[in-house]
């Protein structure tokens, strides 16, 4: 202890000073940023707007100014050079679809000021000064920005033009072309010119096919939930509201306005007015599109619906972890999509209703997207059973395990249902992974407490002996435990602000946050797990709440995946799964993955209850029937038994249940499996009853397409299958009678070519 004392105080002082100086220097460097990007070539951009064309005039294009741009045996495309508005003429009927408001009704337009000229503009953009995070965005048309047309050119199958907005210093080139039975509009991203202001979104020919309500029958069809109609009318509730939702759901890497709406799974929309309608499919770049609908009275008198191409989205840049302080801003880079295309299919007569639109979409999916009908040799309709293995609850120090169904119990469950005479079944086993349903990451081996891998193998073998396929339920897009070599800092999904996304929990006392996994990372994990599934003998994977359903941009530098990259990754995962195991299924799948899944589980069966929506329609079901099997909400999780049972019949869906082999009272404490009542012994009589009724109705038409669906009276719906097989459903508490046709109260009737059953 006699050694010389170190001058600790001096050293500490020196170190602190040095650290502080370095810190200050570094911060100063960050602010000055001498190596940063040089100022944008603003002058150069400005110069592009000097040779101004003729300023765009706010007027309805004159009929006489239209010339034929392209023509085929069915349709003719006419264009007006001065406005670049176009018309489609159906040669057989002479019906016209215009890209601008109906000229006869235009004098009565109620919109005033800039919006009135916006409605006449062939293109509407929204832009913002992103440099000033306090500035708000502007919506602009060609008129109010002093815009003009540039490089208008007729081409072989249509025309191309560039819209210039000098005030916003933005130029957008577009193309319109005629094809066999549709007209396609495209935005050419590569040719977009931007100055200092940032382009947010583009609506191209927003008023295409728009019609005001003048007493005719008509509606806007939007892909909300199962499909929804906004019927035309002049007594609409809260007429100012509009619909604007992102195709394929929200991108969690950006700010999303809370709307409480369901995810759009199909990039389609339509509008019917009187005897004619159009149906749109966003065929390319749809991951960067919104569907925007303005029912009559919201924005002008017309009812209109259009594609809103997204170029930038707002995101939240937080600066404090605790107070959550921060500000909203935009990225400097645009979303780039090689192609952005919307098709407009003009429809007339009996094909112009939503069943006709669904038929167009079905045809598109089978001919262009390679969705081949999946048929089964079995005569009965399938019953889908989700068996719950286990979950976890909050424990003293660590989470504790709540067993629901061991593989042995699952065997007896299956046997009991099979013995009731239900032979066409498909099982999805969930919560089989290590530590149960709410544990994400490191799925294998199957948890010992429910039987382990050997138990699962035995169960699957047993199911196979009854010819029942078994799918294992998995998510893969979340990670709670860091298994699979997942390190959230390295492999987590990062948002635009660079922070790793976590799943938000509703209640404080719930499970620790789960991190979102980068698509690039989960692709690797699924690949490496596939063999383990194969070893168990699983027939497929049922992807729940993630793959095929959730699309986020990943700003993790290690992976860097855009929304369309994620589509590719998810499709390749499904493809690999199908290749290795034979099949894959997904919950309420986005239609980009439809060709890779054999069954759509938990298909949306309701709408989002926006006040402007007049009725939900089974659009997705009409498209899917005969192509894929699908099931709606689990029967034992229904809010109302009878009305939702009737809905399953109306939609032609297969019955499905979520069950446990054990008393499940304690599951209410679990993190995720809160379902009201899981014990299969409580449900077994209902299962037989429901299955027998549904099988009697639907077995005969299980592989046929739905040709038409309509409302024949309030609360009475009719679904017609190929071959004239009609199913009528009555949701009212009064029987429905009309011309010898009787549908019992809260019941259904089947009619085959005239004779009621």
């Amino acid at each position, binding site marked *: 202890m006699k050694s010389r004392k170190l001058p600790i105080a001096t050293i500490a002082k020196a170190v602190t000073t040095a650290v502080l100086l370095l810190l200050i220097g570094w911060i100063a460097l960050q602010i000055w940023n001498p190596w940063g990007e040089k100022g944008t070539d603003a002058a150069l951009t400005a110069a592009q707007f000097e040779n101004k064309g003729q300023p765009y005039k706010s007027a309805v294009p004159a009929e006489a100014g239209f010339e034929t741009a392209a023509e085929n045996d069915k349709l003719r495309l006419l264009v007006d050079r001065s406005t670049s508005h176009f018309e489609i003429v159906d040669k057989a009927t002479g019906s016209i679809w215009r890209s601008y408001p109906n000229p006869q009704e235009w004098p009565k337009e109620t919109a005033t000021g800039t919006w009135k000229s916006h409605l006449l503009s062939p293109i509407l953009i929204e832009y913002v000064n992103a440099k000033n995070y306090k500035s708000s965005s502007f919506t602009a048309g060609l008129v109010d920005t002093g815009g003009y047309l540039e490089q208008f050119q007729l081409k072989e199958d249509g025309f191309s033009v560039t819209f210039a907005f000098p005030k916003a210093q933005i130029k957008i080139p577009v193309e319109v072309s005629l094809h066999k039975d549709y007209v396609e509009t495209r935005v050419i991203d590569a040719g977009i010119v931007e100055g200092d202001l940032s382009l947010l979104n583009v609506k191209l020919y927003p008023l295409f096919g728009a019609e005001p309500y003048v007493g005719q029958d008509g509606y806007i069809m939007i892909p909300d939930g199962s499909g929804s109609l906004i019927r035309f009318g002049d007594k609409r509730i*809260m007429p100012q509201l509009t619909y604007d939702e992102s195709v394929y759901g929200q991108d*969690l890497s950006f700010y999303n306005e809370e709307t409480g709406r369901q995810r759009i799974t199909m990039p389609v929309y339509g509008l019917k007015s009187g005897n004619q309608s159009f149906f749109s499919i966003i065929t390319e770049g749809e991951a960067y599109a919104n569907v925007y609908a303005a029912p009559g009275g919201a924005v002008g008198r017309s009812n209109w619906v259009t594609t809103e191409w997204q170029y930038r989205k707002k995101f939240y840049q937080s*600066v*404090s972890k605790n107070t959550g302080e921060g500000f909203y801003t935009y990225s400097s880079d645009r979303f780039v999509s090689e192609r952005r295309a919307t098709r407009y299919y003009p429809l007339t007569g009996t094909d112009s209703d939503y069943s006709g639109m669904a038929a167009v979409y079905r045809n598109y999916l089978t001919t262009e997207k390679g969705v081949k009908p999946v048929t089964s040799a079995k005569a009965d309709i399938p019953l889908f059973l989700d068996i719950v293995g286990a979950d976890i609850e909050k424990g003293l120090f660590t989470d504790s395990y709540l067993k629901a169904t061991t593989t042995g119990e699952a065997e007896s469950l299956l046997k009991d249902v099979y013995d009731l005479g239900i032979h066409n079944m498909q099982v999805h086993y969930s919560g089989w992974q290590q530590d149960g349903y709410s544990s994400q990451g490191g799925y294998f081996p199957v948890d010992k407490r429910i039987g382990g891998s050997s138990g699962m193998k035995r169960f699957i073998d047993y199911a196979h002996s009854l010819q029942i396929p078994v799918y294992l339920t998995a998510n893969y897009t979340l990670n709670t435990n860091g298994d699979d070599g997942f390190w959230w800092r390295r492999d987590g999904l990062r948002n635009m602000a660079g922070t790793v996304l976590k799943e938000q929990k509703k209640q404080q006392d719930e499970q620790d946050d789960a991190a979102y996994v980068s698509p690039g990372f989960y692709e690797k994990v699924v690949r490496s797990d596939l063999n383990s599934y194969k070893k168990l003998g699983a027939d497929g994977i049922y992807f729940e709440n993630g793959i095929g359903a959730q699309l986020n941009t990943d700003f993790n530098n290690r992976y860097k995946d855009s929304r369309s990259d994620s589509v590719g990754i998810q499709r390749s995962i499904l493809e690999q799964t199908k290749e290795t195991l034979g099949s894959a299924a997904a919950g309420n799948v986005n239609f980009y993955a439809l060709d890779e899944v054999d069954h759509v589980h938990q298909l949306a069966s309701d709408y989002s*209850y*926006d006040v402007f929506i007049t009725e939900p329609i089974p659009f997705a079901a009409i498209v899917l029937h005969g192509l894929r099997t699908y099931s709606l909400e689990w029967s034992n999780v229904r809010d109302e038994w009878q009305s939702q049972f009737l809905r399953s019949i109306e939609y032609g869906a297969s019955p499905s249940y979520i069950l446990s082999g054990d008393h499940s009272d304690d599951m209410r404490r679990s993190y995720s499996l809160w379902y009201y009542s899981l014990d299969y012994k409580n449900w077994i009589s209902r299962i037989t009853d429901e299955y027998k009724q549904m099988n009697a109705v639907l077995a005969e038409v299980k592989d046929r397409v739905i040709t038409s669906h309509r409302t024949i009276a309030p609360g009475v719906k009719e679904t017609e299958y190929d071959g004239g097989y009609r199913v009528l459903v009555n949701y009212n508490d009064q029987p429905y009678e009309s011309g010898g046709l009787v549908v019992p109260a809260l019941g259904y009737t089947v009619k085959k070519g005239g004779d009621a059953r």
Partner: protein
Amino acid sequence: MKSRTLRIVSIGIFIAAAISAVLPLPRAAASQLPYETYYKDGFGQLVHTQAAYIPAGIIGYNTAIPEIDKAEANGADALQLNQPKDLYIDQKDHVYIADTGNNRIVELDDKGDYVRQIKVEESPLKKPNGVYVNKNGDIYIADTGNNRVVRLDAAGKLLKQFGRPETDYIPASFKYDPVNLVVDKRGFLYVTSLGAFQGLVELDPEGQFVSFFGPNKVSFSAFDAFKRLVYTREMYQRELKKLPGAIANAAIDNEGFIYTVTKEVASGQIKKLNIAGLDQLRGKGDFASVEPVKAYGEVLSHRQAMNMNPQLSDITVDPSGNMTVIDTVWNIISQYDQNGNLLFFWGGDVITATSKTGVVKTPTAIANDSKGNLYVLDNTNNLIQVLRPSEFGSLVHQANALTQEGKYEESKPIWEEVHRLNTQYTPALIGLAKAAYKEQDFELAAQLFDQAGVVGGYSDSFWQNRLIWFQHNFGLAMNAALVAGVLFLTWGRLSRKLLPALGKGAWLRVDIPVAKKLGHVFTLIRNPVDGFYGIRHEQKASLLSSLIILAAAAAAFGYMQAGTSFVFNPKVHAGVDLLPQMVQFFGLWIGWVVSNYLVSSLLRGEGRFKDVFYGSSYALFPIILIGIPVTYLSNALTLDESAIFHFLRFAAILWVVLLTVWMVQGIHNYTFIESLFNIVVSIFTLLIIVILIFLFISLSYELVHFVKSIYQEVIIR
């Protein structure tokens, strides 16, 4: 080296920022309805249930006005409400709306179609806030802008006006602003006056003042008592909050009970008053023993922010006595049965971007029709949302009505169906338990009551079970006691004969030092002050022995928390988390030891730190000695014997307190008074230590985040 530190710092800050990013995710909801329905039991445990009500449409918005009525409606061809305040549904299910902003009452029929508007041309209405329709069709209107209540006949002709009653019983400062009213069978009016804390103004049919009806009581806390003591008279009087809550709205049912809702109170928001003005809900609920003072108006805990209690603005009562209330703060509708037991509550997140069918933005009034549909008036969107009972909701209503009528057997199959649909729904368990009790299946009743967490029912069933057990086993128990007695006597004799040399209790004596030191406890029982003196001066205790006692006391404490019968400690139902309790126990104990040592070393106490440590451990032994047996015993007791249980528990606590006093006295060699003083100062010191720790932590926390925010700002902007 330094740059690396820098980098690490920056990475660290970056990570901290990363952790913060928790973004909302649309979760897979049970139903696609725009709201979720829950049940919450007396322990605050939430349970998801199927929707009890389902959106059934919107009325009162753009309703077409028939051609013949257009003149009356000033030529408008569609109904447009303007900030409507009240809603009443008469026996024909016609809807009356107090369309406040348009100075009129609007009547719609049972389908929501326009019938007429009432403006009372002979004496125009001005901002009417409330409307009530009597059985004979007379319409009563709280005509707020004119400070009066008017009574019209069914045709809308003015019959009588009720201005401010002229009486000496009403103070001059009282402002008569009628906003709502109900009328009883006798034709007496109960007028809600805005902000009147005196209660409802009760008027006889002639408009004479009868009394103030159903006033709320002032809440008076210990803190208020302190204020009264310290404050000057002027200061105290300035505390406006000391007025009782003012009744916000009232309703009346077929039996003549008057229901009131009060804002700005934390509990007892709903009152069900009989004709004498007495509350019929107090202590009636199934969970009365868990929450003696019940708060109405449910909140989802995850949304609850500080000091944002629900504010109930209206109540409606259906024919079977179920009460439904709306809350304007959280936008939640809660439904209770006639005894104030929660049935359901539901509410959607408030979404500004759009409006949903079934979700009200600003609920101001609620009413129900004869079919059980609920009508909720939306003051922002100027419309009425109609909700119809779902299958599940109807089943629950049906079963609960039977249970309330005492028809338990009839209710049983319906409750069974409810239970099958939702095994987690507690009212079904309670209904089934009551049915089982009625059928004298006490085993099942006890089990179900236990599962549901109902103390009273469980205790009663347990009492019955215990009686049956005694009846069955009385003979056996007697025989066993007899045999035991005989054996004891013979053993006594034999042992005296066979082991004369060893003497009494000698065979118990052990020579292990720790055991000896543990045995010192018995000295403490007999002579506590000397015993503690012995710890200080005669090495009667060691570190090991005191640690053993401390650990045992902690274990006993834990056992008392978790092992006490459900009857006396209903908390066990929801599961007791021992960790925080243990932290508290040890934290308090260590804090005491430290502060007592510090204080006594200043106040010439003789004890060293280890003596205080040993002594404080030994002072805890009553927790082991009494706590464990009492806790064990509690499992054989019912509520009837609660006095025994509470007495024993109190005895244990008192003993610990006394021992602590003696410990201070014995170890520091104080007089009794000195030791009391010492204890008071020690507790004060403990408080200061806690406050300092708290300050230190919160300040350093703030500092760290201040630096982090600055860093982030600089980097990002």
